[in-house]
Each structure stands twice: as structure tokens, then as C-alpha cells.
């Protein structure tokens, strides 16, 4: 069942000099309920723009975005966002205060919201850290808090914008496994933005590769039917899928590099 549908979506940014930058042009994408969809693309291809529009932070210039058949109007609690950096956490609140924030805004009684917050803090493996402030937590822990904060709000859709991009390789790998486990436990629909092929193959049920910008759209989508135990960098299936995705994105990386070089020459 299609949960998210983007049809003919374009996004144009108007620059101060009056020259328009077309970030996305005529992008179509449909994501089913329960999918873990990884949107993969080179930097600057507009993948974050897709997420921002779906979250309701930005408006489309043309086209239509629907969730459960209804056009979205601004941000909503049905779509939880996990940001790349930690600047979305509230430093004046404890870990618990951050996780229960959404429930507090929606006037859930204290006892119930704390119970639910603790449940999700346990799910991300941070029991015992409830009363620490973000400044006292490591980068990986802060991302866990962000994930718990979104889960505690029980949205239908999780939008994740390179959530592990700022973490070291070791922590990132642990977080990927944890997220896979949490996704299997909760059955949420996930749109996960990344530029890391490994990450996409490790996590996704389907991978969408984007053209290098400008005027980007989806180049191809690939199903990922690997079992959890096969999602290992040394597994043959994993390597085969990695090759396939890499083949698709290689030209786009070249195009992006070329474009970067041209921009440099013009500048």
C-alpha cells in the first residue's frame, strides 16, 4: 500500500542575483508502508530538499506530495524527523525531557509520557542516562536520543537526513545495526537519506539512486532483499548489490565532480 507519493515534484530556488537554481525537476517516487527506503545521491543532488519538502519545512515549486492520499500542509507529528547534527536537541532539557518533548506538547499526562519516553530510551539502549543533558552525551548517544525522541511521538513515518553522517566509522556501524533492529521491531516506514552506498545496502529494503543535480530526479530504484544476517560487508549478496548500486552512482559522481570543476573555473 502506497503511503508516500511524490508526483512531478520540482523545486526551484531563486537566488539574489535573479538566476534560478533548479534543484529538482519532475521527480516521481512512491514508498509503501513499512518500507525502509534509502535515497542515495551525491552531495548537492537535492536529496535533503526531498526530505525537507516531505517534512513540510519547504514547499514544492510544482508537483504534489501526498501522505496516505492527502496533500501535506506543513510539518506534522505523523512525520518525525531525525536531523544530521545535534543542534535540534534541546540543551536545557535532560535526555528524558528531550524524548518526552513531543508528548508534552500534545498534552499527554506526565506519568504516561515518562513511561513511554523511558520505553524508547531503553529501546535505543540509553537506560540510566535519562537525567543527563545533551552536552554530557557523546555524538552517538545524542543521535540515539534524537531517534528515541521521534519514536516516542509514534509517527507513521521516520524521515532521517544522514543521521549518522557526523559519527565516526565504529559508532556509525553500531548505530546502523541498532536502527535495523529498531525498524524491524517497530515496523515504521522510513525514508533515509545518505550518500554512503554501504549504509544504504546495510539498511534499505529499497534504494533510490538520484541523478547528480541540478534538475535532479530518481535515476533508478533497486530492491534489496538481503536477509538481516546477509547484511554484512563480506557477504557475496551484499557485495553484488553494492556493485550494482555503485555502477549506477559512479557516473553521477563523475558528473558532480565535473560540474564542481566547471563552477570553480567560472568562479
Amino acid at each position: 500500500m502506497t503511503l508516500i507519493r511524490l508526483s512531478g515534484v520540482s523545486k526551484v530556488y531563486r537566488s539574489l542575483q535573479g538566476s534560478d537554481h533548479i534543484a529538482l525537476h519532475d521527480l516521481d517516487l512512491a514508498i509503501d508502508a513499512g518500507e525502509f527506503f534509502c535515497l542515495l545521491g551525491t552531495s548537492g543532488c537535492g536529496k535533503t530538499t526531498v526530505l525537507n519538502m516531505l517534512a513540510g519545512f519547504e514547499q514544492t515549486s510544482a508537483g504534489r506530495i501526498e501522505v496516505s492520499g492527502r496533500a501535506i500542509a506543513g510539518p506534522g507529528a505523523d512525520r518525525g524527523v531525525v536531523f544530521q547534527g545535534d543542534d535540534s536537541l534541546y540543551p536545557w532539557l535532560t535526555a528524558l525531557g528531550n524524548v518526552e518533548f513531543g508528548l508534552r506538547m500534545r498534552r499527554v499526562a506526565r506519568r504516561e509520557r515518562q513511561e513511554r519516553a523511558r520505553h524508547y530510551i531503553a529501546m535505543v539502549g540509553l537506560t540510566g542516562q535519562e537525567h543527563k543533558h545533551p552536552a554530557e552525551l557523546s555524538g552517538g548517544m545524542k543521535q540515539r536520543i534524537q531517534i528515541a525522541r521521534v519514536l516516542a511521538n509514534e509517527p507513521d513515518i521516520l524521515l532521517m537526513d544522514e543521521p549518522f553522517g557526523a559519527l565516526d566509522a565504529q559508532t556509525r556501524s553500531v548505530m546502523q545495526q541498532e536502527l535495523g533492529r529498531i525498524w524491524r521491531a517497530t515496523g515504521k516506514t522510513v525514508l533515509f537519506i545518505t550518500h554512503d552506498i554501504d549504509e544504504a545496502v546495510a539498511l534499505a529494503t529499497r534504494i533510490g539512486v538520484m541523478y547528480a543535480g541540478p534538475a535532479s530526479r530518481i535515476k533508478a530504484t533497486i530492491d534489496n532483499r538481503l536477509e538481516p544476517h546477509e547484511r554484512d560487508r563480506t557477504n557475496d549478496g551484499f557485495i553484488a548489490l553494492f556493485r550494482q548500486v555503485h555502477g549506477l552512482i559512479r557516473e553521477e559522481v563523475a558528473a558532480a565532480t565535473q560540474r564542481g570543476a566547471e563552477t570553480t573555473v567560472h568562479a
Partner: protein
Amino acid sequence: MRDALSRVAGYALGFASLFLIWHVAAVWVVHSVLFPPPAQVIAKAISLAEEGVLEQQIAISMQRIMIGFLAGSAIGIPVGLAIGSFRPVRLLLEPYTEFFRFIPATAMITVAVIWFGIGEGSKIFLIIYTTVFIVILNTAAGVSAVTPNKIRAARCLGANRTQVFMFVALPATVPYILTGMRLAMGNSFVTIIAAELVAANAGLGKMIWDARLYMLVDQIFVALLTLGLLGFVTDRLFRLAIYTFAGRFSPVV
């Protein structure tokens, strides 16, 4: 605990060296009735305190500062929040803040005395004046320094606009408000003494002015010492308040 002890010890040592240098300079270097040594100043302070004069002047000056400072902050915080939150308000009020903040409170003393007389009115007006703009500017800066992702996160966690303001923008701005108030407190000390020197019937500034007339140099030094200590204690209390309310994430301390 250990940290607090070492801090107290550091301060004690620092102050002791200040008095030692003062003593050496006064007794062995300068030898002048115009530069009394610390022992003489402290003796004078004790005798003024026993007469009740010192406490009275302190109370008068501090009361003026506190009333003006609290009133100025009470005006400055909401105005700063409004300027930071709403662009039309900013455009409307920026001419005021950007114009008046370059006219120092000391330049307004004469006008204040003409308008509000030599008593409390003019002093409180001046302290409000010196407080309000710096609090406005810091508060407004704090509001615009809230990272967009904090607001976005709140919106997609289900917060409405009022809740975003109450539970995100406001707490995120608290450290900036407190910093503005701390700076304003420093300015208030400058302003109150200047105002009391020029035109007043009482206060620490008046005490300095009177002492000058009768060449009571040690009394001038008592007033200076008192100001230094009052400022030090007030600022420490402020830092304590900032730390208590915002310490874990404050960019200030």
C-alpha cells in the same frame, strides 16, 4: 567541593596580593596623604560603618540600581523578544534602539535632573535608560540565534506556534537575556556613580563628592573600595544565577 575550595583560595590570594601591592605602594613608594594605605582606609570604613553612614549610602545607591535595573529588564526582555521574533517590530523599533544606544546614560544626566529632579526619579530613570537597550539587544540577538533545526524539530513533534515560542525560543534565549542583564548591571554601577557625583542628595557618588570638598581622601577610598566589592559580589551572584538556570549549556560561563 575541592573545586570550590581552590576557587575560594585563589580569590583570597588574589585579593590579599591586591591589598599587599596597595600597602607597599602607599607606605614605601608614594608617601602622600593623597594616597592612604589599606589599613587606614579599612579603619575609616569601620568608623563610618559604626556611625551608620556607610550602610546608609550603600543602601541608597543599591536601591536605585535595583529598582532601575529590574524595571529596565522588565521592559527590555519583552521588547527584545518581540524584536527578535517579528520582523515588522524589528524594523519599527530598530531606529530607537540603534539611535539611543549611542547616547550614553551619562550624557542624559542633565536632562534627567531637569525632568525628574535631584532625587530618586532622575537616578531610576538613568538606570532604566542604561539597562533597557543592552537587554533589548542581547535578547533580540538570542532569539535570532536559535538554530532553525530546534524549531523544525518542535514543529514535527507536534508543537504549535505558541508552544514553539514558549518551550523552544524562550528557553534557548535565557542565557542571552542573562548576559544582557549582567552587562547592564555593570553599566548601572557606572551610571549611578556618575549621576550621584553630578547631582544627588545621597549615595556613594555623593559621598565621594562630599569627601572631595573636605579633602577626606580616606573617605573617597572607602567609597571606591565599597564599589569594587559591591560590583564583585553582584557579578558573582549573577554568574551563579546564570550557572543555576543555564549552566549546562550556557555559552557565557
